[in-house]
């Protein structure tokens, strides 16, 4: 019941090859040899040609069927480097041997319906992720005192997150009630003229690869906060990119992900059409109905790069994530209640002085 594995070993010294994001290629950190994508494809032809398609259930042996079932749960593999037997998590598709740290790719988790169509390789290094976290906390004056000294980075890891990417054409219709308001003054009388309109916009809108992460354990809003990804850097999937990075397979089905994606597209379509209505110089626009139909639609499964950094402060864990391609970042930070109160009091005093002065000058 062992899972089939694949490794990428340096043809010069036999050590593990890893994808180097600064290089944009592959490096042996033992003998410092470097290889580009073409060379990897050449040297590891058998890996690239490995059949990852879903087999016909009728052709599987009993053992293979059990293996297929076991693939969906925790899996045992033998490290090709040190021969250690290691159990990995149910969603892991690319791991490091716990003993010798050799990058190991679990092909069983990348085959059949779990075979990714596309991948964006990492462009940000671990050091950049760490630096990003330091910069992120700068200027945040509501952080508790001693945060920077006492916050400890517990874990920092690169992970290829499974994503569903949906493209398609939508036909959207938005209807709105709008007003144009004009005021003028004559002596001590103020006049207000209001014109009422009914506005309709219908349009065909094309959306390209709207993402939704395919992992239940990862917060969707956290992933959406580090978008967008730059799809000009997207490539056809190759297992070689996973070498040295963790990867997971999806556990959110396409149907489940589509609900979230469709809502995002619906909201965006309404936003676009409402903006077109508002461009008519209305004083107010109030949407009364929205209708979005999806026409042509396609979905692909992709692995997209994300740096995860977990830190501890005052015994509590806080997450920090960074887009592994663009560097866009977000993290949850602790807030000092005392500083919040003092900040609020200062704003209150300044506002009171301004409002009180205005009242005294103009209304008294």
């Amino acid at each position, binding site marked *: 019941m062992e899972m089939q594995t694949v490794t990428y070993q340096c043809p010069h010294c036999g050590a593990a090859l890893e994808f180097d994001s600064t290089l944009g290629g592959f490096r042996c950190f033992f003998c410092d040899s470097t290889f580009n994508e073409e060379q990897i494809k050449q040297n590891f032809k058998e890996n690239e040609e490995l059949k990852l398609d879903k087999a016909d259930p009728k052709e599987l042996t009993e053992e293979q069927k059990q293996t297929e079932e076991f693939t969906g749960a925790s899996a045992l593999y033998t490290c090709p480097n040190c021969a250690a037997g290691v159990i990995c998590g149910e969603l892991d598709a690319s791991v490091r041997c716990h003993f010798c740290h050799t990058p190991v790719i679990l092909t069983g988790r990348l085959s059949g319906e779990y075979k990714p169509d596309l991948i964006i390789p990492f462009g940000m290094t671990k050091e950049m992720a760490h630096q990003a976290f330091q910069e992120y906390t700068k200027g945040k004056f509501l952080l508790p005192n001693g945060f920077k000294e006492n916050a400890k980075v517990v874990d920092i890891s690169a992970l290829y997150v499974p994503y569903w990417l949906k493209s398609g054409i939508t036909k959207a219709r938005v209807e709105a009630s709008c007003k144009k308001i004009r005021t003028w003054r*004559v002596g001590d009388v103020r006049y207000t003229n209001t014109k009422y309109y009914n506005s309709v916009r219908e349009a065909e809108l094309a*959306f390209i690869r709207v993402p939704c992460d395919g992992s239940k354990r990862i917060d969707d809003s956290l992933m959406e906060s580090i978008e967008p990804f730059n799809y000009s850097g997207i490539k056809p999937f190759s297992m070689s990119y996973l070498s040295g990075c963790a990867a997971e397979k999806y556990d959110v089905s396409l149907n489940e992900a589509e609900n979230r*994606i469709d809502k995002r597209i619906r909201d*965006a379509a309404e936003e676009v059409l409402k903006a077109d209505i508002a461009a008519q110089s209305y004083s107010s626009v109030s949407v009364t109905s929205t209708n979005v139909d999806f026409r042509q639609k396609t979905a692909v499964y992709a692995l997209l790069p994300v740096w995860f950094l977990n830190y501890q402060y005052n015994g509590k864990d806080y997450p920090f994530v960074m887009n592994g391609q663009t560097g866009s970042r977000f993290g*949850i930070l602790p807030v000092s209640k005392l500083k919040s109160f003092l900040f609020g009091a200062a704003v209150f005093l300044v*506002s009171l002085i301004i409002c009180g002065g205005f*009242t005294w000058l103009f209304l008294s």
Partner: protein
Amino acid sequence: MFYRLKTLFTAATIMLCAVLPMSVTAYAAKYEAKIFDLDDSLTYEQETELAELLSEAAELADCNLGVVIADDILGMYPDEYTADMLNTTFGDDSSSIMLLLCNDFDAEYHYDWIEMDGDAADKYFNELGTILGDVYIGLDKNGYAGAVESFCGYFGAASENNTEETPDKTGWQTELQDLDDMLSDKEEQELLAYMDITAQDIECHIGVVITDDLKGMGDSEYADNFADESFGYGSDNIVLLFCNDHIHYDWISAYGKATDMYEPLIDDIFDRVYDGLDSGGGNNYYSAIQYFCSYLRDNKTTASSGNYDDYYSDNNYYYEDDEGFSIGSLLIPAGISIAIAAIVVSSTTSGYTKKKPVSARSYMDSNRTKYTTRSDVFLRETTTHVRISSSSSGGGGGSRGGGGGRSRSGRSGGGGRRR
């Protein structure tokens, strides 16, 4: 000889014909004046007289003047209609003023309007409120003819038929109207003389009116109207109203500096007035008015700056509150400041725990966006107005409300009491 005389005569005739029109032109009015009575609100005689008056006013005002009384403004805005009339009558960019008295009450909006153009706009724009105020006073007094007369009167043209004297802007005036026949003629004359002395002393106009019919108005409204009509809109004055219909209150209204001087003392004034009224067996209006005047003279220096915040009522009397410091004027800025502080702190701290997700608009291919429908359908239109209490500035027009008095701009105040 005869031939030479004939030639000479012909030449002289030709020269005269050439020069005469020029001289007529030279002596003709420099500015035009037109009245358009489209509503047939004026008689022929009124229209003729008013046309002459308007012409005189145009010369005094150094601009063209026009008045249009219309009951159908052709579905246009009143301001658009008036501008159209002005341009059509006097031409574009001429120094002109056109007054519209709009009676198109079927229209959604039917406010009166004054449109100005050219040098006239530069000169008179800031006086729009005053001009319109005068027009309305004239309208109340003598209908549309009165309105046009007052319009002309603003620019200095006086009507021969106007037997009522326009308020003397140089001296302090008095007005006593005994509509309920409570005073004899002799008493009225004596009181007028005493009121006159008092008015010069306190440097405010003084008015007293005794009536049992407020003509559908409220007590304060009637008193304000009386003051406007007697002394002009916006003048310093104090008016005592005796209302004998046993429904409304007696009222004292004050405007301008009389407000500063006497509004805090209204209760005392009533005490004094009623002392006089009750003397000599009761209903002694002669003494009441005398006591009123003497109180005004004795207390003219008892001026408070208006910083009082009493507002209470009981069965007998109440004050109208004047502006000044109050707890409310501190609570409102405090409330606003609390709201601002809460919003600022909340939005700052929310940035520490969440971030607005990226919109899917980032994934939209805008080059492939195709609009199939774009429509904006006009449904309806409304125009509302609200009176604001700050002092008037230049404007374009006004609306005649159905009945009711006009609230005054600037400091005003008053108080009432029921006997």
